[in-house]
């Protein structure tokens, strides 16, 4: 297994105001954004270290069209409240990255309108053209966008390293099972310290 800063990326999933800021739209649905903020310190540390090791950083952003015509089955049939609260509408403060995790010009931003960062996005073509083999994953929410993306990455034969203390979920049982399922068949589950040790040794 070869891990170096040429074949690895840090993938930061949906660290947006909507999910993390008390004034974000997720709080309007009664979700406890305090729980999701648990992912912030670990993610900040991974971003800072990735920059110092010159590991490319990809930020995903969950973004819907203002009228949600791109919401599909998920919005129309399963969670119509996402439209009611105007979750992550393109161009709004809600959809913007959380202030301490703002992308720099050299970072890659992938907009998506589905939980998986692979569906209908440019992520895979970026990864392949950069000859990426290893994806280090952090962000929110563990059981939804993180897990869907991790399942997709592993099935495409990217080696996935999940930072278990840099992800978070609003529901403890779903957090627990998300970690179990990903460790069982989709990812190597590590903590931030262990990931930085890997980057140090490479």
């Amino acid at each position: 297994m070869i891990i170096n800063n040429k074949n690895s990326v840090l993938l930061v999933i949906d660290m947006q105001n909507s999910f993390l800021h008390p004034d974000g739209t997720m709080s309007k649905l009664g979700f406890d954004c305090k729980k999701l903020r648990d992912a912030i310190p670990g993610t900040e540390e991974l971003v800072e270290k990735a920059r110092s090791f010159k590991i490319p950083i990809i930020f995903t952003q969950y973004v819907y069209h203002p009228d949600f015509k791109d919401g599909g089955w998920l919005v129309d049939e399963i969670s119509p409240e996402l439209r009611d609260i105007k979750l992550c509408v393109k161009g709004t403060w809600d959809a913007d990255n959380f202030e301490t995790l703002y992308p720099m010009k050299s970072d890659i931003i992938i907009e998506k309108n589905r939980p998986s960062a692979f569906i209908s996005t440019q992520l895979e073509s970026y990864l392949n053209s950069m000859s990426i083999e290893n994806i280090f994953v952090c962000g929110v929410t563990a059981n939804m966008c993180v897990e869907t993306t991790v399942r997709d990455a592993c099935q495409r034969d990217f080696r996935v390293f999940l930072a278990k203390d840099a992800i978070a979920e609003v529901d403890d049982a779903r957090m627990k099972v998300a970690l179990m399922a990903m460790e069982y068949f989709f990812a190597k589950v590590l903590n931030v310290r262990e990931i930085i040790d890997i980057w140090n040794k490479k």
Partner: protein
Amino acid sequence: MIKNILSDTALLVVDMQNGFLSEKGGMAKLGFDSKLLNSSIPGCVELVKVARKKEIPIIFTQYLYEEDFRDGGIQVEEIFPGIKEVELCARGSNDAMIIDELKPENGEIIIEKNRPSSFYSTRLEAYLRSQRINNLVICGVTTNICVETTARDAAQRDFGTYVVRDAVAEVDDFRHEISLKALEHMFAKIVTVKNVTETWLKKNS
């Protein structure tokens, strides 16, 4: 709630193979309790029976690896090498066969796959689009892995996604329950065999 499944709907039966369900199968050799997975069989049998009667298309998926597992990728090589050791669902083996109770009949589609999702690197989506199938009723095993990965993929591709609670099963009850909760949260409507069959039986063929 499930009126949508009266038309342009298919029944997707995920991985109901000896490898997962037989007490001599690959999963049992790995130390998992295949009896827990067997709880999905009666529900799947009933759904298939009613789907045949009402001429609703049935698609079976079959988890299959090449005999030397060279197509296993990261999942087999690095995450779960036990799969290769017990030769889970190797092409041509009894392990890979769909169980007798659910033998596909002429005209029913079998989708081979070598990843948990029935959509990834398979011809499932092209088949569904060309047949103008917009809704999937999903049953089979295992709830948290192949069923859930497939349901997440179906929903994100905007198929109406219905997962049948009493026709799916997992080797761990906690993972089974929370998996259904996760699916219900953002991807699928969770229904019962009775919900589905009662709806289908009202259908005029």
